[in-house]
């Protein structure tokens, strides 16, 4: 039998407690620690290290409010709907521009809110029609636009040069080409008026078909429904009256203490 005393885990771990470094170790330790301490004193602490302290001081309310404000400002700045770009309208002195303003289009021409039919009609009634006389101011407008907007681009300069050369050699052909290169309302205006549009048989253009259909149609201020609709309406109104009568009777019966099912009331 083993007579030796017990050795437990605790005894073994007590040995670990006695495991200590030599005295020389602490000299080096102290020297290194001193250096690190001085470095830490000189080191500038980052701002986020101070955040817990700020929170501990209960400054979270103003900090939170500031954060929310900053977020809102940033959101408004970056996510606000972008303002619609103003379309460059030709100068008021230009003949084409004057006609365009006379058409009453305060909104930009390219805006979807513009009623194209009205624009077309108004412009069709104006002096800008499909004629060599009308092509003259449009050529000026075109050249001005090209000069003002795209003169700085090499391609624009090239186009302008080509146009000038073309105008010098074949004046009629140049005007015809230019009339096809104008902006959509102006181009439509140079093609034809509404009457002409209505008369042109173009099966592919739904707009033209509608224009032709409603041409000369008189709108009735009080449109009368068809006979079938009127008849159905009268029938329904009659049913509603009888239902009202029935429900009224059921309420009276309820008042007398005799409950009447709703389904019975509807049978009246």
């Amino acid at each position, binding site marked *: 039998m083993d007579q030796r005393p017990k050795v437990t885990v605790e005894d*073994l*771990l007590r*040995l670990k*407690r006695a495991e200590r*470094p030599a005295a020389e170790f602490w000299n080096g330790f*102290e020297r290194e620690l001193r250096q*690190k301490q001085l470095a830490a004193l000189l080191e500038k602490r980052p701002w986020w290290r101070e955040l817990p302290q700020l929170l501990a001081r209960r400054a979270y309310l103003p900090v939170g409010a500031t954060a929310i404000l900053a977020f809102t400002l940033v959101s408004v700045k970056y996510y606000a709907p972008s303002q619609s770009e103003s379309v460059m309208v030709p100068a008021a002195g230009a003949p084409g521009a004057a006609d365009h303003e006379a058409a009453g289009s305060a909104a930009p021409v390219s805006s979807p809110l513009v009623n194209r039919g009205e624009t077309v009609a108004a412009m069709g009634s104006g002096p800008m029609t499909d004629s060599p006389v009308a092509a003259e101011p449009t050529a000026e407008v075109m050249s001005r636009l090209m000069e003002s907007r795209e003169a700085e681009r090499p391609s624009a300069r090239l186009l302008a040069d080509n146009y000038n050369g073309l105008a010098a050699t074949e004046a009629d052909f140049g005007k015809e080409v230019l009339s096809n290169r104008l902006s959509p309302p102006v181009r439509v205006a140079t093609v034809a008026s509404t009457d002409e549009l209505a008369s042109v048989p173009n099966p592919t253009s739904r707009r033209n078909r509608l224009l032709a259909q409603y041409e000369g149609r008189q709108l009735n201020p009080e449109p009368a429904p068809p006979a079938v609709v009127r008849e159905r309406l009268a029938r329904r109104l009659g049913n509603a009256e009888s239902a009202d009568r029935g429900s009224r009777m059921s309420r009276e019966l309820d008042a007398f203490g005799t409950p009447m099912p709703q389904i019975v009331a509807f049978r009246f």
Partner: protein
Amino acid sequence: MNLSRVFTKALTSSPERQQEADADLTVVKQVQAGDVAAFDRLILKYRERVFGVVYNLTANREDASDLTQDAFIKAFQSIHRFQGHCAFFTWLYKIAINTTLSHLRKNRARSFFSLEKITEDGVNAQVIDQLTDKKGADRDACLQELKEKLNEALQKLSIPHRTVITLFEIDGLSHSEIAEVMGCSEGTVRSRLHYAKQFLQGELGKYLRS
């Protein structure tokens, strides 16, 4: 009575600890008032204990030295935030253990043991005699082997279990102090301690006698 004193009393188990905590608090207040040199007293007082804990967690002298220094530097930098809700040594231990744990998590794969010399006082010499039954060079060889086996067994434990058994068995902290340092409940501390002891008994069965 100040609220922080109440907390400190609840966390320090013995009157000696309470006295120690009060003395530390006085020094800490001096440091907070701007007396930087007063912090040296705290370093001198706790450097061996902190080093012991860190060394038993890392089993590496150089790492333990660096981590102990880092813990003191962090404590020095944050001493203005110490409000006395717990004892200074508990707070310092918490910093040291958190620093060590983050180091161990970063260097999980690395395991390089460096063994310190065991100081043989009366109790230790008796235990060593019981374990080795030898004298001279054989005794030293046996002791070296035992130290290696102890370190190996401790390193096989998970970090929380190793921390608990180091703080309880080697550094002598109470359950409540360990719970405070590790930020868990006393029940968790007891459970981890039980498991760690069972594991070490299995690993070191060769050296144990019942």
